[in-house]
């Protein structure tokens, strides 16, 4: 007789769980499930990005992938007509930062970033498309249904005149990259998300006093939130050379810091809930991605730290006809975009 068997014989159970015990335990579990369901419902109904990543325990950098692009009344459709082919499993998401409340007339694209999650899900790249970029805007339909003819214009104007669907179509047409999903976020939403994170740390190499954006801070590290955070990503005065490109760099830095903070702080359910509420109110996105797919993406993502995420600006050169505008730099831009396909 071996000792394992003897132990088994010695430690016999006293009695099986009674029906009442099982029912009580099951009841406690279902109560817990109902509480959890409130989160789940928010997830199912919201156009919430970061969540996915967080819920499935994937870390910071991935949180950027705005994959939870669920349907809703503000949702947008993918552009109609011929679109670039999708040759592999890489995932591209267009994020537009808008300067007005979404849905309000005349909302302008303040910033545009194309996010690229590699086919092996190990790296994340953000490509900023400067708003002063002159591009060929394809024929679109404005949200009110009016036809907008193809024309040469600032890349951001596609969003202003044709909404998110038109911005989406423009980016696909200009880059030749198939954009899988698109989302827009407005200032209010941005502030709400930063606040829900408890603020985000920035570093200023020198003191800033910009009456236009309202940013007034001494040099050094600061945790900014609300209006200050917004001012930081909008200001172009008092930082570096004062160009839109310096501003883009700030935005990229801020996004990276935000991601890292999100990865750290959203494990707290109360924080997560506040963040979801803010994101839910602030985001307009396409409804195409179903939950199963989203979870598969988030779970499959292997970007484990912000080091796996890089931010670049689309290569550009001066626009000959207007010194205040720029155009994509032939060759370099093309190579970058090809790498995103």
């Amino acid at each position: 007789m071996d000792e394992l068997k003897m132990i088994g014989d010695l430690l016999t159970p006293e009695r099986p769980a009674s029906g009442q015990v099982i029912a009580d335990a099951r009841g406690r579990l279902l109560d817990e499930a109902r509480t959890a369901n409130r989160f789940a419902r928010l997830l199912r109904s919201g156009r919430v990005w970061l969540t996915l990543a967080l819920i499935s325990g994937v870390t910071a950098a991935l949180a950027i992938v705005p994959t939870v692009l669920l349907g809703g009344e503000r949702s947008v459709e993918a552009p109609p007509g011929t679109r670039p082919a999708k040759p592999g499993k890489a995932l591209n998401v267009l994020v537009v930062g808008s300067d007005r409340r979404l849905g309000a007339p005349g909302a302008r694209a303040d910033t545009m970033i194309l996010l690229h999650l590699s086919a092996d899900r190990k790296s994340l790249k953000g490509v900023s498309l400067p708003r002063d970029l002159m591009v060929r805007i394809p024929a679109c339909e404005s949200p009110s249904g009016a036809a907008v003819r193809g024309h040469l214009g600032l890349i951001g104007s596609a969003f202003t005149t044709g909404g998110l669907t038109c911005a989406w179509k423009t980016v696909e047409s200009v880059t030749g990259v198939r954009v899988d999903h698109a989302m827009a976020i407005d200032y209010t939403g941005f502030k709400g998300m930063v606040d829900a994170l408890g603020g985000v740390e920035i570093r200023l190499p020198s003191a800033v006093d910009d009456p236009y954006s309202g940013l007034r801070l001494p040099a050094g590290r600061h945790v900014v939130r609300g209006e200050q955070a917004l001012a930081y990503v909008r200001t172009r005065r008092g930082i570096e050379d004062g160009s839109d490109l310096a501003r883009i760099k700030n935005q990229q830095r801020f996004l990276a810091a935000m991601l890292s903070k999100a990865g750290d702080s959203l494990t707290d359910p109360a924080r997560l809930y506040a963040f979801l509420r803010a994101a839910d109110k602030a985001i307009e996105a396409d409804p195409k991605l179903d939950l199963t797919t989203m979870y598969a993406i988030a779970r499959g993502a292997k970007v484990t730290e912000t080091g796996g995420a890089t931010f670049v600006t689309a290569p550009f050169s001066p626009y000959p006809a207007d010194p205040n505008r720029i155009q994509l730099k032939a060759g370099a831009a093309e190579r970058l975009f090809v790498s995103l396909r």
Partner: protein
Amino acid sequence: MTGPARVVAPNPSADDDAELIEASRLRPERFAAIFDRYFTEIHRYVDRRLGADAADDIAAETFLVAFRKRDRFDPARDSARPWLYGIATRLVSRHRRNESRRYRALARVGVDPHAEGPEDRVAARVTASGTGFQLSSALAGLSRGDRDVLLLVALGDLTYEEVAQALGIAYGTVCSRLSRARRKVRAALGDLGDLGGRKGGEENHG
């Protein structure tokens, strides 16, 4: 003795545990299926270590903890069984003083013919074979880590690999803990004299 002697085979429908847990992320109520599948078995395991009253609480707690941690379940593992045993074992370990006391009590009744109560009767019966006292004392004397491994194998019928998963320890650690625990138990039993001939045997688990 109540219930079947041992629950040996893993649940035959366990192959879709991972799927169920996955689904429960968005549909939390789906987790009830995991409960229905394993509650009785986990209850029985805890009962055997701490007694039925403690098992009522700890088995229920096991599924609450599992539910809260469902995002961390590794979907590469088909069955939730080792994972649940691991959670139950950690909860049992909070009661390890009670557990040792229980084993000592089992050992005592071996020499107390007037013992009463179901556990005492059981112990008395085992004791009649002349081993209960030594075995209970040996179990009471094991370190927590060694005892967890030994009892997951002896009571839960987990494979070494599953024990490693359940406790989040290396496979090699499972082997070394188990072999140490078995050696101590055998040594205790060996003191009985009538088992002396078994010394040096039973090394099949390495």
